[in-house]
């Protein structure tokens, strides 16, 4: 039977990456000196699984590397080795190398063998540091009784211990196997057999004297007896015609099995060579097939599948009930029909929810990288920082998990770098030496909230404003609220670091962070107090497939505004409206002038009812940090809508993020708020806009 092992590779990689995360977080929590054995055990187990899998699936280099890690962990687990900070650090670095190896292998790329070699040497160095685990030299037992060429076979004396059958081993099976190797001459010793009255049917009494003739190696025989070497007395001697067979008296039961002989058998070097050859063959074939299977997979908790299956069951029952009702429908059954339809609706809704659940993964997939990050960076920066995480079990959409990682890393780095002060600075300010960064995730309303909070120095509004003016982002006479100033850090080309630091000064800026979050349909806000700390609050939709929408109407047309973008809806009064030179229509909302976007104009709706601003409503929305009022005829209801792509069969339309199907089967278009604000850009009053003008 040939089995394509490549089909298991994706699962292997998935679980190995999970295993690496377990190892990493376990190592980070490990207290050198007094490590929790269960913790080491779970790290060991993860390493062990990766080793087992990689060996089986033919990734020999990974198996070899993990083997060294496993050995080290095993000694720690058994208490044979102290858990030192050095060993933990080397293991952590090894986790990184292993991750690189797995990534490269999964992508069919070249593994950096130099790096692997160097890290393996590190591990070996740690291992060698403790001579306690000295290897016991294998005794050389190949003292052949006669030359291999002269040998004609083997004389085997096999006496099972009485309990042998209770290990599930059957002496007859072993003898049958021996018989398959060559010509077997069997003599049974019946003497130990007890009289029937004393006979224990579950015990073995017999022993065998066996002569095996043929070109059979000792290894082949040892393999057969491998499982029972402790459960029997066994002697295996070569038969040479030129020499009298040594009188092979079987050892007595009290004497331990002839370990030396048996142990020496699977000549380790030979065996390894064989393995290598086998695995490298398999690797060749795996490589070819791996390229095709690039589809991303998702691991789903079995209980979620069970819930779904139950629901489908219910749905089937409802369906059959309804079709029975339909076959001979009578108006008197209208009540039952209504009930059935209500049931159908409920099941359908529940099923939709549970299908969505399948895409949901705990945010810990993203959070798990932070302990390491904080550990490494705080060491590097000479700061003392404690990371507190809560709500790791909060579930979010898989796509969110994949896309929120980088923005979060950036924000956390930011907090470490610019938020938390140096220890002496903190002490001088009357704060504890150790700073705290908190990562919290929780559900609120239909959203996921992720908070990144530090007890550092907070954002300095004057410094920020100064910098923004200096960079020409705001006019020098601008009067801005604290909140507006904080928002400045999201402007393109703005960096708060006085000196561009190694940690957060490079690469993506906060503008990219905001854009990534907006792309996920989310938003980010800042709270800060000087000397006390800052917090960044990210609000994300629960899932990307469903959106909470506000239905609005303009003439005969219906559009969906994502609820997450809406701040409020207001009726405008004449005295709120201003015509600002060069900025078009604006309205004043709590000391702020916001542009009015007449949706019917921008969307080309011909039959809009409200033409004068006091006839309709303004929906105040925010996108990418800019606010405006969308002018519509009226608000309809709020509802959850399933997002459908316009691009699938047509193309992207500016101002629209997609479409959905309403209850009556018609299509409604979903507005892309940041896009609309950009389209209406000429009239925008947002501060960054001002800046662009004054620049």
């Amino acid at each position, binding site marked *: 039977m040939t089995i394509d092992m490549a089909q298991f590779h994706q699962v292997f990689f998935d679980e190995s990456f999970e295993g690496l995360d377990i190892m990493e977080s376990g190592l980070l929590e490990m207290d050198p000196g007094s490590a929790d054995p269960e913790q080491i055990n779970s790290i060991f187990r993860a390493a062990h699984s990766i080793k087992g899998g990689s060996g089986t699936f033919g990734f020999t280099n990974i198996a070899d590397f993990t083997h060294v890690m496993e050995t080290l962990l095993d000694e720690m687990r058994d208490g044979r080795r102290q858990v030192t900070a050095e060993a933990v650090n080397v293991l952590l670095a090894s986790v990184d190398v292993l991750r690189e190896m797995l990534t490269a292998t999964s992508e069919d790329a070249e593994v950096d063998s130099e790096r692997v070699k160097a890290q393996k040497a590190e591990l070996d160095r740690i291992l060698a540091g403790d001579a306690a685990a000295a290897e016991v030299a294998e005794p050389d037992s190949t003292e052949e009784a006669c030359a291999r060429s002269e040998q004609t076979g083997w004389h085997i004396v096999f006496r099972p211990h009485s309990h042998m059958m209770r290990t599930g081993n059957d002496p007859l099976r072993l003898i049958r196997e021996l018989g398959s190797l060559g010509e077997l001459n069997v003599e049974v010793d019946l003497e130990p057999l007890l009289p029937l009255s004393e006979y224990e049917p579950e015990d073995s009494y017999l022993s065998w004297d066996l002569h095996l003739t043929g070109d059979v190696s000792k290894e082949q025989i040892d393999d057969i007896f491998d499982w029972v070497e402790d459960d029997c007395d066994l002697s295996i001697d070569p038969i040479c015609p030129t020499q009298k067979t040594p009188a092979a008296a079987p050892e007595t039961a009290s004497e331990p099995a002839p370990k030396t002989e048996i142990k020496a058998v699977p000549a380790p070097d030979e065996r390894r060579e064989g393995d290598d050859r086998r695995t490298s063959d398999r690797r060749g074939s795996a490589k070819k097939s791996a390229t095709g299977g690039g589809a991303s997979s998702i691991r789903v908790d079995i209980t979620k599948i069970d819930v779904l299956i139950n629901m489908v069951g219910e749905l089937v029952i409802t369906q059959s009930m309804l079709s029975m009702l339909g076959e001979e429908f009578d108006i008197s059954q209208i009540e039952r029909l209504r009930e059935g339809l209500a049931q159908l609706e409920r099941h359908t809704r529940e099923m939709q929810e549970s299908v969505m659940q399948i895409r949901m993964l705990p945010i810990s997939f993203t959070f798990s990288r932070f302990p390491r990050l904080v550990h490494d960076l705080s060491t590097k920066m000479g700061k003392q920082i404690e990371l507190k995480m809560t709500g790791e079990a909060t579930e979010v959409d898989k796509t969110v998990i994949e896309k929120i990682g980088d923005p979060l890393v950036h924000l956390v780095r930011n907090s470490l770098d610019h938020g938390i002060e140096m220890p002496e600075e903190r002490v001088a300010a009357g704060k504890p030496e150790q700073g705290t960064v908190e990562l919290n995730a929780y559900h609120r309303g239909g959203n996921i909230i992720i908070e990144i909070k530090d007890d550092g120095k907070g954002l300095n509004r004057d410094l920020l404003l100064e910098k923004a003016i200096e960079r020409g982002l705001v006019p020098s006479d601008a009067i801005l609220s604290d909140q507006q100033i904080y928002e400045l850090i999201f402007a393109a080309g703005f960096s708060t670091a006085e000196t561009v630091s190694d940690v957060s000064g490079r690469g993506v800026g906060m503008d990219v962070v905001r854009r990534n979050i907006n792309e996920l349909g989310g938003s980010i806000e800042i709270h800060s107090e000087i000397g006390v700390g800052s917090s960044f609050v990210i609000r994300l939709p629960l899932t990307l497939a469903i959106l909470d929408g506000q239905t609005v109407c303009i003439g005969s*047309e219906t559009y969906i505004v994502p609820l997450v973008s809406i701040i409020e809806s207001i009726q405008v009064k004449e005295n709120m409206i201003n015509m600002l030179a060069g900025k078009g229509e604006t309205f004043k909302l709590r000391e702020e002038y916001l542009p009015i976007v007449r949706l019917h104009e*921008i*969307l*080309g*709706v011909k039959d809009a009812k409200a033409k004068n601003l006091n006839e309709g409503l303004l929906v105040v929305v925010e996108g990418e940090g800019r606010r405006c009022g969308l002018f519509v005829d009226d608000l309809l209801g709020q509802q959850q809508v399933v997002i*459908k*792509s*316009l*691009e*699938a*069969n*047509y*193309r992207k*339309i*500016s*101002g*629209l993020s997609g*479409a959905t*199907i309403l209850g009556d*089967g*018609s*299509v*409604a*278009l979903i507005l892309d708020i940041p896009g609309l604000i950009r389209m209406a850009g000429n009239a925008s009053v947002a501060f960054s806009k001002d800046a662009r003008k004054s620049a």
Partner: protein
Amino acid sequence: MAESQVAELNNLQREGFSDEQNAQYLTFELADEDYGVDILRVQEIRGWDVVTRVPNTPSYVKGVLNLRGAIVPIFDLRERFDLSSQEYTKDTVVIVLRVNGDTGMRIMGIIVDAVSDVLNSNSSGLVNAPDFGGRVATEFIAGLVSAGEKMVMLLDVDKLLGQDQQSEQELAAVN
């Protein structure tokens, strides 16, 4: 696979290398002219139904339709070809087509006056489209075929609707 084979066959036919293999076309009327599309591209034919207008698109894009959960754009072929437009009636028909674009297969609908017939054609009946200098750009015409008294213009669906996307993207870029 079948589609690509047919496309290849059609090419051969056009160039006159083909044997007696037949192709089938769905023919329809548009402003008293007869057109045809490769029947293998036709997913379904449905009556005209109200669509949702999509803002900032050319006028021949009538809007989008919910086709069993997929959002499908509907094009008015009269307007696309700059023929006089006409009120939609009960006879107005939407032909839903499978179109091969750069990004894979898309589903799109075209509005025509009425569906006529299925036409069997072989190599002998097919001729290259001459340049009419007229209403329908020859680039969208795969060939002409005679059906009795009538001349049927066979549309190249991919060029017609694929091209369309491109010009719209350019249009959008200008906007």
